[in-house]
């Protein structure tokens, strides 16, 4: 514009025209130097265009024809720019600046810049347009060159493997390279835009969780990085969450800015870590392998130990490592090894030794040492370097191994284990010492198979030969018998393995032989013992005597074993008996004293024999004779009680009966003798009192005489009964038919008994015959009927029944008293039952009714001999008497009379 004004004032003063001309020429020079052209167009009736010379030059057109037309101009403009230029020129503008390119006639592209202005008339018409065009090609090309260099630099920075960030002096971001973008991939691009503050970016990468803070807090980390940035502290570490490790270098730039280079040292770090790990491993290995190392000057002055040396040698850290001190902890016997070597050092030879050292704890350690004489790589001086390894354990194992080999040999001998080798091709048998011993040989055994076979039991040879044959198995085990030279037979277990050649032929046999004679014998013994045990068990099972074994170690002595007889006796199943206390059969009626005796023998572990009332499973009481003995184990410890139990109820009854019989017999003899004499004495008493009565008497005398007579009569009755009772064996009576005889007796009895007594008969019609005397039978029946009538106070029904019963039925009726009966017993019996509905008897009465002179009747009513007499008679018949009585319900007598076997048939 200034130029335009200067140009506009050219026409004003002629005086100043020189100065103006001078100025003009200066301006033209400047315009030429700046390659600046000027134009002006005045629209006044006709278009009037002015170009400066420079403009012609810029457009590379001749000035001779004057300024070219607009069309011509557009033709010179670069075709890519001409439409934009044309559009710009044609538009309605007042001031316009644009760049465009020219294509010169010489084909040159010229860059131009143009600034234009227009002046409008009040009506809005363009009256004048002027402007400049400057050739800026040189400038553009210089720019271009500069840009290219920057681009290359930028490219270089972009392709840097290190992160690169440039900040200007105000801490604003200028550029970051791709590496940085990759470091924080995912971070919004705006944070990498130019102008971003350092701390903004720092916050952003923290906020977006890129950083592995390690032990730092977020604030510390931020502060430290910021401080490093401002104070240009380098290098500074940074770890990212993806496991990369960077070192950041802060460099100042010439303009007061900062370049940060982030160098990725992850791999380096990793290698370093690995290296450390390897070293650590090595150290561990040394520690685990109990290896320590040491160095020593050649002149033995200075010695240094690795920490593990102290461990290996068992020294405290206070141990002063010197050659002399090392010698002092070595076992005196072993020191020589080290001294010898010291005297003859040879370079680079590897020395080795094993010795014992004494640890500070007093324990002896075995050391394996290796050392060498070498040159120090740094000083070039000779020195010793070596290692010590603690091999105590290995030594111990070696010792143990040696010992175990010895043990193995010993074990082989003890186990009677020998081994052999047989090579069929050479027919050669190799004997181990132990095998010889087994064979009872002092020298070598036969070396050929045939010879060996001669030692084998003839019955076992074929099996063995078959196994050893070419078709035999590759390995076999068998038991065989051998004959020793002294003729002794031994049982041998053989296990052999066959080794075949590639062709399949037998190369050799290897095997072991074991003398199992003792085992075989023991097995036989065991088998025998087992059989004996089984036999014993079966015998105990089958024992007719009840046997129960109780655990002696428990308080209530639970039953561990009970045999069948015990089950039978008790009525319980064997399984139900097991676990029950041994006294489980006892009940309310058991005598406490015998129970106490039993318990005492338990406690004292003594044998005992106790009889007590026990109870059958069905509630029936029985007398149990218990014999008890403690059972001891092989150590003499009392472990159990064995009890032998027997139901002696019947035995006791038999004994009672026997006692009764004996009592009666003795009494009978006595009574018989007395009564014979009494009979004689009674005769005159009766006779003379009778004669006296026949004389005339006063009433008192007569009364006295009658009393005498009456008493004599009673005495006679007693004597007669005693005599009947004391009778000896009656002569064998002839067999009579019982029904008929009884019928007659009953008829007779009816006339004797009180009239209110009714006899109901139920007599079998069968012809039951028995060898019994009628008198005796009468005596028995009448006696029973009398008793029955008395029991009913002289009135009521008496049932008399006669039936045939078998021995078994009788046994049942007599309450299982089966062993009362001898084998002489008849098969069949007549059972004569007399039953009343009278007062019945108490048990204590019932048990004594057969005792002589026992009576419940008022004095003078009974002799007390009636039932004794019946008892004697029935016994003489070979029969039995059963009594059932219940107080208030009556009594039933069962008289069992053996039937005449001849007639029965």
């Amino acid at each position: 514009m200034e130029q335009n004004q200067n140009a506009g004032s050219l026409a004003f003063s002629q005086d100043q025209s020189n100065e103006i001309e001078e100025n003009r020429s200066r301006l033209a020079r400047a315009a030429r130097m700046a390659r600046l052209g000027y134009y002006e167009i005045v629209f006044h009736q006709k278009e009037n265009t002015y170009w400066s010379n420079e403009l012609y030059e810029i457009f590379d057109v001749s000035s001779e024809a004057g300024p070219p037309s607009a069309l011509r101009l557009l033709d010179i403009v670069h075709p890519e720019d001409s439409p934009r230029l044309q559009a710009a020129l044609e538009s309605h503008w007042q001031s316009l600046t644009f760049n465009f390119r020219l294509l010169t006639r010489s084909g040159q592209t010229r860059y131009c810049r143009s600034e234009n202005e227009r002046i409008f008339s009040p009506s809005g018409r363009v009256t004048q347009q002027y402007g400049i065009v400057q050739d800026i090609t040189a400038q553009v090309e210089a720019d271009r060159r500069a840009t290219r260099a920057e681009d290359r630099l930028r490219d270089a920075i972009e392709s840097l493997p290190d992160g690169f960030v440039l900040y200007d002096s105000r801490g604003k971001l200028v550029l970051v390279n791709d590496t940085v973008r990759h470091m924080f991939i995912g971070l919004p691009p705006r944070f990498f835009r130019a102008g971003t503050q350092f701390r903004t970016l720092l916050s952003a990468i923290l906020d977006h969780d890129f950083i592995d803070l390690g032990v730092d807090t977020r604030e510390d980390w931020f502060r430290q990085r910021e401080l490093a940035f401002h104070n240009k502290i380098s290098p500074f570490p940074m770890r990212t969450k993806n496991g990369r490790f960077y070192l950041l270098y802060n460099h100042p730039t010439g303009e007061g800015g900062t370049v940060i280079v982030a160098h990725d040292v992850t791999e380096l770090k990793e290698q370093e870590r690995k290296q450390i790990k390897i070293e650590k491993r090595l150290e561990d290995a040394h520690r685990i392998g109990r290896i320590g190392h040491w160095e020593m000057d050649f002149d033995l002055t200075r010695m240094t130990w690795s920490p593990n040396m102290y461990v290996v040698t068992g020294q405290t850290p206070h141990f002063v490592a010197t050659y002399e001190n090392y010698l002092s902890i070595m076992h005196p016997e072993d020191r020589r090894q080290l001294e010898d070597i010291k005297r003859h050092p040879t370079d680079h030879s590897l020395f080795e030794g094993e010795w014992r050292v004494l640890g500070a704890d007093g324990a002896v350690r075995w050391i394996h040492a290796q050392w060498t004489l070498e040159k120090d790589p740094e000083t070039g001086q000779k020195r010793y370097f070596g290692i010590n390894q603690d091999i105590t354990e290995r030594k111990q194992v070696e010792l143990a191994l040696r010992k175990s080999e010895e043990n193995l040999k010993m074990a082989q001998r003890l186990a009677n284990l020998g081994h052999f080798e047989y090579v069929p091709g050479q027919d050669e048998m190799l004997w181990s010492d132990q095998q010889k011993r087994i064979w009872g040989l002092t020298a070598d055994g036969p070396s050929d198979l045939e010879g060996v076979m001669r030692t084998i039991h003839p019955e076992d040879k074929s099996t063995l030969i078959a196994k050893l044959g070419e078709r035999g198995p590759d390995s076999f085990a068998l038991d065989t018998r051998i004959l020793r030279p002294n003729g002794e037979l031994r049982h041998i277990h053989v296990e052999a393995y066959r080794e075949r050649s590639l062709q399949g032929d037998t190369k050799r046999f290897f095997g072991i032989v074991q003398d199992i004679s003792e085992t075989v014998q023991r097995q036989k013994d065991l088998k025998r013992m087992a059989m004996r045990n089984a036999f014993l068990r079966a015998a105990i099972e089958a024992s007719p005597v009840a046997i129960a074994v109780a655990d002696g170690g428990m308080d209530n002595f639970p039953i561990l074993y009970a045999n069948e007889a015990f089950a039978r006796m008790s009525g319980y199943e064997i399984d139900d008996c097991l676990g029950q206390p041994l006294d489980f059969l006892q009940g309310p009626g058991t005598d406490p004293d015998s129970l106490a005796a039993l318990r005492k023998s338990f406690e004292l572990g003594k044998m005992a024999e106790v009889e007590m009332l026990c109870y059958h499973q069905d509630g029936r009481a029985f007398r149990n004779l218990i014999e008890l003995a403690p059972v001891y184990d092989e150590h003499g410890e009392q472990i159990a009680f064995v009890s032998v139990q027997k139901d002696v109820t019947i035995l006791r009854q038999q004994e009672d009966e026997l006692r009764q019989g004996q009592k009666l017999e003795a009494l009978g003899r006595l009574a018989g003798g007395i009564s014979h004499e009494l009979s004689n004495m009674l005769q005159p008493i009766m006779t003379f009192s009778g004669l006296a009565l026949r004389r005339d008497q006063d009433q008192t005398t007569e009364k006295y005489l009658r009393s005498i007579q009456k008493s004599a009569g009673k005495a006679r009755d007693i004597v007669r009964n005693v005599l009947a009772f004391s009778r000896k064996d009656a002569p064998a009576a002839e067999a009579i038919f019982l029904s008929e005889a009884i019928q007659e007796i009953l008829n007779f009895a009816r006339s004797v008994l009180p009239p209110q007594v009714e006899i109901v008969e139920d007599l079998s019609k069968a012809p039951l015959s028995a060898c019994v005397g009628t008198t005796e039978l009468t005596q028995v029946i009448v006696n029973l009927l009398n008793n029955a009538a008395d029991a009913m106070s002289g009135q009521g029904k008496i049932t008399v029944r006669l039936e045939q019963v078998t021995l078994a039925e009788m046994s049942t009726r007599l309450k299982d008293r089966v062993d009362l009966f001898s084998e002489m017993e008849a098969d069949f019996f007549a059972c004569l039952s007399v039953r009343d509905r009278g007062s019945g008897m108490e048990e204590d009465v019932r048990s004594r009714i057969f005792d002589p002179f026992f009576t419940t009747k008022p004095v003078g009513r009974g002799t007390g001999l009636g039932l004794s007499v019946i008892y004697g008679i029935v016994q003489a018949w070979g029969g039995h008497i059963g009594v059932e009585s219940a107080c208030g319900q009556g009594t039933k007598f069962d008289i069992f009379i053996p039937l005449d076997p001849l007639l029965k048939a």
Partner: protein
Amino acid sequence: MAKILLVEDSELVREAVAAILEQEGHILTIAENGEEGLAKLQSTAFDLVIADLWMPKMDGLAMLKKSRALGDMPPVIVLSGGGPQAPLELSASLADANGAVAVLFKPCEDEELLSAVNKALL
């Protein structure tokens, strides 16, 4: 009135039996045992013999057997006292077997004896 031989070792019994029979007018000869009785039977004829069974020297049965063997026997009434060796039943049956017309057990009542005697003398 009959001649009766009483063979009885017990004096008490002899007196009592004699008292009963003499009251009835019978004539009694006494023998104290079987031997004596047998002698009297052979020397004298009796209408009836009343004999005890068990007596010293010779018992009643032996006497009966021997006397029977020697010749006719008057009827015999056995008057037994029984005893350990002579149960009543046995005595009775033995007496029966040896031809006793009646067997009486001591002590017997007057009527018992007299009726047996009268019956035997019929």
